[in-house]
């Protein structure tokens, strides 16, 4: 029962290599601060609208994001709701989602953001996340457009069906109530839309649509969209959350303005893997 040094020495070396190597990797891939995934959002700046942001943290982090502010417009810090978190397989990373309710955003002057008299749409790029220990992290989020609700008579369109699927495709169908001419397709994230998504209006690609489009009462306007495969998308758009508005503007037969917002939803962040995060970390160092 003597210990055989020819066996024991290699085992001891293997144990040492395993410990040193794993601790090195563990330390190397620990996140110093959460990774906020890009979001490209266009939402009405009105009561009842909210959106979700996603971030990745270490599995052992207890310091969760609880407050958010928009430094570009000097908002007060406001509470956010954690909607879910789950561990990412084969890693020390956790995927978290927080929901931001626009009606809870207050400016420094105490006024709610949605109650401001601004008529212009609001465009923001930066966001500050604050943890429960008070740590503040500022990020370039992507782009956020908050569309000021316009009090235009909207009796020309009738909402039809809306459908979206997990494969990042979907469609919206509208019915026209009166004779209508669509004269303008407004999209604050136009460049992004053409890059990440294929959109068709009644079967015609968005880029080939010739305006104006005329419709009779009862006609259907079908907007179909299909997000391109991630591999064809630029790195900065990967693992992103998209809510891209497409505003149909026109006039009815009386010459009254007609307007309808269609939202194109896509999420690519659900497929993020440990390998993706390690790649992001390498790129950021």
């Amino acid at each position, binding site marked *: 029962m003597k210990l055989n040094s020819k066996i024991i020495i290699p085992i001891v070396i293997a144990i040492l290599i*395993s410990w040193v190597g794993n601790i090195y990797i563990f330390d190397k891939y620990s996140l110093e601060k959460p990774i906020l995934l890009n979001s490209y959002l266009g939402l009405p700046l009105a009561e009842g609208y909210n959106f979700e942001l996603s971030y990745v943290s270490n599995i052992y982090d207890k310091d969760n994001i609880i407050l958010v502010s928009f430094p570009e417009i000097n908002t007060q810090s406001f509470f956010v709701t954690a909607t879910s978190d789950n561990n990412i397989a084969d890693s020390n990373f956790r995927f978290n989602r927080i929901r931001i309710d626009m009606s809870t955003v207050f400016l420094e002057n105490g006024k709610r953001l949605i109650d401001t008299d601004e008529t212009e749409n609001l465009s923001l790029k930066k966001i500050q996340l604050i943890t429960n220990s008070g740590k503040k992290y500022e990020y370039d989020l992507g782009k956020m457009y908050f569309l000021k609700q316009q009090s235009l008579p909207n009796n020309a369109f009738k909402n039809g069906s809306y459908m979206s699927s997990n494969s990042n495709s979907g469609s919206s169908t509208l019915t026209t109530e009166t004779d209508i001419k669509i004269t303008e397709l407004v999209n604050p994230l136009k460049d992004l839309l053409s890059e990440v998504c294929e959109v068709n209006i009644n079967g015609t690609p968005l880029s080939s649509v010739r305006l104006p489009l005329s419709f009779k009462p009862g006609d259907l306007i079908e907007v179909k969209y299909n997000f391109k495969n991630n591999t064809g998308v630029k790195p900065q758009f990967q693992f992103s959350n998209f809510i891209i508005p497409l505003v149909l503007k026109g006039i009815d037969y009386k010459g009254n303005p007609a307007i309808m917002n269609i939202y194109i939803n896509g999420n690519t962040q659900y497929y993020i893997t440990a390998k993706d995060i390690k790649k992001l970390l390498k790129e950021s160092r």
Partner: protein
Amino acid sequence: MRKPYSQLIWGLVFIFFNINIGPIDILPNFLGYIFIASGLEGLAQVNLIYKKGIIPSVVLAFASFILIFYPINTSSENITPSNCWMLGISAAFSVLNLVIFYSICKGIHDESEKLANNDLMLSAKTRWNCMLYFTCFSLILTPFTLNKGQFIVGLNFVISLILLFLAFLIVLLLWKARDEFNKDISLEE
């Protein structure tokens, strides 16, 4: 000489089987190590090899006692880069346990050899070898759990069960040794 073997059996039962009533472990590990130290002290009169396990038992008795008041949590959600040394404590426990198992198995092996009890001798040798290699395998695998490979985490769990089973086999070995050696003493008398 039944008493030291019984102390070792109880010691291992206290260490490897944890029965909790609420937050209280009714089979505290530190008591198990005290039993083992006492059992090894008794058997050291027969064979000096048993002495090798006494100091590790005393160290582990103290360490286990301190851990009652300052428990360490090595679950994945508690290990951070700044406290991953905590995993080293469980590794140190494994190494010291291995020294204790060596002194027990080697002692039984040598005693069996003297009495030409080949079955017991072979059992002691086999169980020690299994305990040695599976503990080493576990020591190699444990740090991989830091990086959460799902396969490794599953494999480490299986190894833990095997180690528990091997500890149970060593309890049975001690049981058999207690009966066999005392039978031989009675026959000599």
